[in-house]
């Protein structure tokens, strides 16, 4: 649905040259929810803004639904943008227009005749749960409600793609959850491809099928969200994952540990198997769970546990081998 080929964005002034996006290529499939993660200044927002040419790439190609956006005339580009919805961290509603008119504007921009706008606007407001707020002005709405209006506006012309620029970063955690749930619903019901820029790993965990991590304008790691969470390879990715899955053990505990410390990863369906009780029955070792958590990465469980194994060294080693066989994801983090 979205193909990005070797996109560069360089900001050049007389005195300086800043690289915003550095040779990024991505492929986002139809119906996917794709997250792009990075700290501020990593270029993720610039990359997103290239996807509807709010920002013109210095070089490279952008295809949306096989249309080469950079080859379009201004008029064609305006038409193309109607099938690319966008929502922002700052909502950016028109404060002088009612909720109804804010949404109706998108239809007007697409040339929908006035007589057809009303029903569509009310339908959209119902979809985002603001059916009763049609005549309010944005100043009267909460942040979450404003974002719902902007989602309604972005969906007005039945877009194929929805771009979300830090759409939940200005919202409190519970509002964030409800907005993410709404995005998930939109993705499911209408099959709209969603691209989400965020610095919150929680957002990726909650709804993204795939994600890319950006640093200094480059994509340093990408893959399914589950793989990224289970197996982050780059230090920055690990840092991000830690905001959700933090397994730091207190120093004192590490020192006082007598057994072997192993970190076990339970992936997907195996999280339901009684692997720990099996290993304790099969081998004459004692197990002591020090830390653990099961996270659901877009509804698939990922369990991580840190266990201390006590007993005869040979038995412990055998137990670890057994665990390795069953789980495939066992790491010894401290030997006895």
């Amino acid at each position, binding site marked *: 649905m979205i193909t990005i080929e070797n996109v560069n964005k360089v900001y050049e002034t007389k005195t300086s040259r800043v690289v915003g996006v550095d040779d990024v290529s991505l492929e986002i499939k139809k119906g996917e929810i794709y997250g792009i993660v990075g700290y501020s200044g990593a270029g993720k927002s610039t990359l997103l803004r290239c996807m*509807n040419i709010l920002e013109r790439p210095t070089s490279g190609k952008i295809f949306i639904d096989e249309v080469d956006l950079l080859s379009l005339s201004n008029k064609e580009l305006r038409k193309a*943008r109607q099938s690319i919805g966008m929502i922002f961290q700052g909502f950016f509603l028109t404060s002088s227009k009612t909720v109804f008119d804010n949404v109706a504007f998108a239809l007007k921009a697409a040339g929908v005749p006035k007589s057809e706008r009303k029903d569509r606007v009310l339908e959209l407001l119902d979809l985002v749960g603001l059916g009763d707020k049609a005549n309010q002005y944005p100043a009267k709405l909460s942040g979450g409600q404003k974002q719902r209006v902007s989602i309604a506006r972005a969906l007005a*012309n039945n877009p194929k793609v929805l771009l979300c620029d830090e759409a939940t970063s200005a919202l409190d955690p519970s509002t964030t959850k409800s907005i993410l749930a709404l995005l998930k619903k939109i993705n499911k019901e209408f099959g709209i491809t969603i691209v989400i820029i965020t610095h919150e790993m929680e957002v990726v965990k909650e709804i993204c099928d795939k994600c890319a991590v950006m640093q200094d304008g480059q994509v340093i790691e990408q893959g399914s969200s589950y793989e990224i969470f289970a197996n982050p390879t780059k230090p920055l990715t690990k840092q991000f994952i830690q905001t959700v899955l933090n397994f730091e053990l207190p120093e004192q505990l590490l020192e006082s540990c007598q057994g072997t410390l192993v970190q076990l990863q339970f992936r997907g369906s195996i999280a339901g198997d009684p692997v720990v009780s099996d290993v304790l029955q099969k081998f004459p070792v004692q197990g002591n769970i020090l830390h653990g958590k099961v996270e659901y990465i877009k509804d698939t469980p990922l369990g991580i546990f840190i266990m201390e194994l006590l007993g005869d060294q040979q038995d412990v080693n055998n137990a670890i081998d057994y665990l390795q066989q069953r789980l495939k994801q066992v790491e010894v983090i401290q030997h006895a």
Partner: protein
Amino acid sequence: MLDRVIEILPELNVAFIETLIMVGIGLLVAIILGLPVGILLYVTDRGLFLENQFVKGVLGVIVNLIRSIPFIILLVFLFPFTEFLLDKTTGPFAASVSLSVAAIPFYARIVESSAREIDKGVIEAAIAVGASPWMIIKDIILPETKPGLISGLTITAISLIGYSAMAGTIGGGGIGDLAIRYGYYRYDNTVMFTTVIVLIVLVQFIQYLGDFIAKAVNKR
């Protein structure tokens, strides 16, 4: 003293209407020409959707040029132009010509700066839904700047009252002219004070009205 005021009343009436004519025409031209110039100055600025350094530059220089000429000099300078347009250089309509010329860049700059107050994101959001430049101007920029446009009109009107007094002295008529003729040339303080009070009331009224409307249309 009251007798003197009553005596001058018919003349004051005429002068008041002349002032209203001059300010009214000036404001009308400010809206018809100053508003588009102001919007054009804004949308052709760097980073905006009709960015055009040439238009912005030329327009900016013209606006600054007119703004930098003291009004009294502009008045005299425009005599030939006024004569060409109206075949005369006296009376409120003739004075309106130079008042209008001064009002256009004055209001244009106010329009430009109130348009700058709009969050760029709001305009980007409109671009992102595929709106045309004209639609963004008509449906986003103008409604969003409405309170600023109205307070700007208030400021322009009050400045024009001041300018109209100057225009009055060289044959334009109006309250300012009355004040100079009687108060200054004939040392008639009663008339001078009366005219000053009329001007104060007029300015206050315009300011109140402007503030009231600006507040009423502000949905922020």
